[in-house]
């Protein structure tokens, strides 16, 4: 089971980022999340990155892409680099009601498959 992203359904509301942080430390913040939203605002180009154990999942408008360590993050801005330092998604394994990001997303972008 892994978290999947359907990028074109995303509206950029960012609540998944905050839900994930809440899963880890019960506070509202974007800083400790395994998910990171990124945006090139003037181009309306935006998507999500997910830090996994060994890889980085890029949910870009063009579709999903998986990056291995050392590969360049393209199409993402400088402010998204700290994603590499984040804690890897633990799939909310211990959350009884399911992954918080999936529950928080209003648009069905995220699913656990």
């Amino acid at each position: 089971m892994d978290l999947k992203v359907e990028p074109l359904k995303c509206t950029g509301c960012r609540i998944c980022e905050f839900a994930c942080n809440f899963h880890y430390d019960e506070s509202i913040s974007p800083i400790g999340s395994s998910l990171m939203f990124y945006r090139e605002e003037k181009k309306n180009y935006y998507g999500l990155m997910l830090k996994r154990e060994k890889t980085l999942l890029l949910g870009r408008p063009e579709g999903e892409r998986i990056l291995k360590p050392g590969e360049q993050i393209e199409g993402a801005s400088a402010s998204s680099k700290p994603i590499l330092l984040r804690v890897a998604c633990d799939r909310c394994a211990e959350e009884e009601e399911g992954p918080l990001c999936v529950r928080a997303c209003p648009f069905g972008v995220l699913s656990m498959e």
Partner: protein
Amino acid sequence: METINNYTGNILIADLASGECETEELSQELVEKALGGAAINMELYEQYKDRDPLILGTGFFTATFFPCSCLAVLTGKSPVTGAIGHVPLTWQVGVELKLSGFDFVVLLGAADKPVRLWLHDGLSDINESQDVWGKDVWESVDKIREAYGDDMIQTLLIGKAGENKVPLAQVSENYWGSKDSFGFGAVFGAKNLKAIAMRGLGALEVAEGFFQKCIELKNEILNGAIKGKSGLKDFIAPLGIDTSIKAKIESATHRLNACYNCPYPCYTFFKYREAPSVMAQTGVADPGCLTSGLAGLTRFYMLGIDAPRAMEKCFKVGLQPAAAAQILEKKGIKDLAAAEAALDALASDPVKPEGSTWPIAVNLPPAASIFSSAIPPKPVFSPVSDFGAQDAGQFWVRRQALAYTIGMCPICAVLTPEVSTEKIVELVRMSAEWDDFSVDKLNSILDNLIAKSSG
């Protein structure tokens, strides 16, 4: 003092005249008295009224899991109405402000040269802003983000219209204008304040059980009046706007966007320098523009011109689009080049907007003039009776007062009868651990806000 849930506990007092910033504690007493948002802004406005104040504040639920909790509010004396006005700031402003470490910012006096306020990590700096003074809004946002090294920084700023202190000037949220119908762009200009830049990487505490309650409310909203609808296009028929506009919007739409934690993506991105269907990243630097300003968009379409391009021009010079479009209509302008030239001229013209800018009949009581006229003037998808109200005008004023106080987007507020006063009271009670908070108490806070703002 222990911090109140949902708040950082800090009020920033930024004295632009002296360049000094001080932080004060947000007291439990003030939150109990006025809760948040426009209602606390109003208290702070009165406290500092002899020192030329402009107040920027977040609502009680702003930046939390409460659905549609993106809101910040700017409160001051409007050069348009000559009275108090409250501007709802959506997009990412509220979340970025609160998580930068400040619930409220009191801007006092005027700087003697162009400055900007930079808020981050609980710190505040009043920095020189000569580098972007005279530059248009788009270039200024780019330069400010570059200067502070982060393109997720959120900005409130002015263009030429604000620098020239004209009443049509808006404070813009990043590149895309705002719901400012009060001319606060001119107030920024008079203060020599080019911009407020914010980055929110802090944290807030919330009550136990709050997350789950908010998820339930969000699901109720998604299955309620907004179900199956999205974008500005779906506002057109219910609001009684010329239905031919809908196809025009649809054919130019790239993707819809939602503000922080919003279940109804009304922000519509138009692409006109490349095909709207292009989703991949390309080399086109400025492919189009983003807006939630349906009144302005509609009025520009009614001139027979490419409305999103006219919106872009308004955003760059920092003009209120709906009021500007109304003036262009009176001038008989019917082509884009003439419209762009006229908009440039309006950025240094002291003309005032006139009355309602909606291209539909609007029947609101006088108290409505303290809130932004950019918000749909009636519930969009449901009758007022679904909100438990009878008088449509009174309902609108109270619903706006409520949204501006709790930190809910005021557009969402007129879309979502599922968000009842009772549910809000329950969530306030839970958050603040006030067992005696009641519908009556909330109503008296809203009465006070309306009475004090209406003078």
